[in-house]
């Protein structure tokens, strides 16, 4: 009888070890998957932003210019994105912050076109950030400025930053 109990005890200990090991593995795998999904979402959002009709440089019926944002559209895009964030643009970008920073000739110009942070209410009713990770992705772009003294399109250099919140 004692032998049987001992065997059973060891058997259940082994089962317990197995369960603990499997749970730990699942936890790690889940975290890895989340990170992978976050990175994929950041890349997808960058790709979508680069080809947004709301921002791209077009010229009549010609093909739009690659990796180029029209400054006149850029200035007003955040207004439209903000107005329709919950009912439309959230479905494109989810929780993210998208900005375009000019680096040349002026390095102090920055346009935040979309900003939706994951937040929660704390005990006092104040909204506090509710995300663990932020995955930033960068992409070099040109910014076309047609509204200038020369009366000719002027191209500036900048970069697009897409920060996806987990």
């Amino acid at each position: 009888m004692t032998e049987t109990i001992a065997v059973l005890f060891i058997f259940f200990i082994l089962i317990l070890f197995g369960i603990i090991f499997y749970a730990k593995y699942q936890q790690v795998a889940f975290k890895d998957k989340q990170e992978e999904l976050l990175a994929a979402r950041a890349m997808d959002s960058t790709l979508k932003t680069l080809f947004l009709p709301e921002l791209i440089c077009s010229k009549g019926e010609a093909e739009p210019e690659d990796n180029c944002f029209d400054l006149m559209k850029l200035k007003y895009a955040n207004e439209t994105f903000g107005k329709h964030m919950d009912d439309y643009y959230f479905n494109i970008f989810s929780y993210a912050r998208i900005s375009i920073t000019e680096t040349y000739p002026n390095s102090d110009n920055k346009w935040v076109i979309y900003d939706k942070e994951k937040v929660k209410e704390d005990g006092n009713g104040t909204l506090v950030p509710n995300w663990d990770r932020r995955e930033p992705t960068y992409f070099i772009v040109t910014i076309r400025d047609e509204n200038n003294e020369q009366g000719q399109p002027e191209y500036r250099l900048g970069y697009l930053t897409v920060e996806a919140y987990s």
Partner: protein
Amino acid sequence: MAFKKNKTKKGQIQVTFNWFYVLIAGGVILLFFFGIVMKQQKVSEENLAYDVVRIMESIFTGAGVSEKTKNFIDTSGLVDYTLYFNCDESVSEFGIRDKGSPAQNVVDPIFSPREIKTTQLILWSLPYKLPFKVIDLMFVTSWNTKYFVLGNNAFAEEFLNSTTGLNVIPIPDLNSVDPQKNFQIRIIDLTGSVQEGLPVPDKTTLMDDDKVTAISFIGTHSAQYFQKEGNSWRKAGDKIAIISLGGERDAAKYAAIFSQDSNIYQCNMMKVFKRFNFLLEIYEQKLKEIELYYVESPEKTLTKDCLGYIQAGQYEPNLQQALTLLKGNAKACSILFDHCADLIEASAKLKEANTNLGSKGDCLTLY
């Protein structure tokens, strides 16, 4: 001796009991692992459905931005599963039939058959312009979805040339339709030969009704879907309006060809018009800035009449009038698809005004 006998009997009972106990315990353990295997099988099927949907979403994103490029996706691992696509109230759904939860999409317009069972998925996108680019229309089909082009006009030639790599062939008449071993067929009728009540091609009579469909183009801006019912054609939904400015690679017309029926077409086009309204808001602001630019710098308009093409009153059409008209029509269109036909004329005016601004006035253009 008697004592010895008793001892042996007791020993025998003990041994029998152990074997019985081991049998039950073994059975329970076996059941336990069998349960785990069954559960795991169900979980992996759910995971497969989830992975497929997620990968499809990613592929759609990539294909959506690589416009005009056809993407051939190997789906031989999914040959036993049926992919399904649907759209209802401006929400698209796609996934594996009867497995897992489908993905929902309220942004990207996806035009496709309702069901696809294939080893190779084909994705293609074309930019939709009205007159400026609104969004990329995504077409989803497969190598075993066969398209028959009936008619011999400029559009037929253009369609055949632009769909290289797809399963598309021209046919001289309806009786030449041979579905072979394709999963489904679509007849693109440019002659008006497909009509309600008329018999379906002989070789299609044994196919499932929903796998034999046709689209018949009426004029340049409308079309009617048909579906096989028994041995004859029946109308599938109402006549649809094709909202486009025409020209080569007319995305709206191509979208109609790749859509299963009028519901999927209209549902996805409503997504397009929703986005169109948002774009108009940005273009309205841009127009104000262009106008201000010329008002504040009159020296820039000494040799050219930019403001005449921008402001209302001098030239017809002009950007302000055309954009206001388009905005009004777009608002009506976002409520009811039947109102969308008015967008064609308004966007043609905007296109003309913008072209005039660029070519005659040599000024900044709206798009």
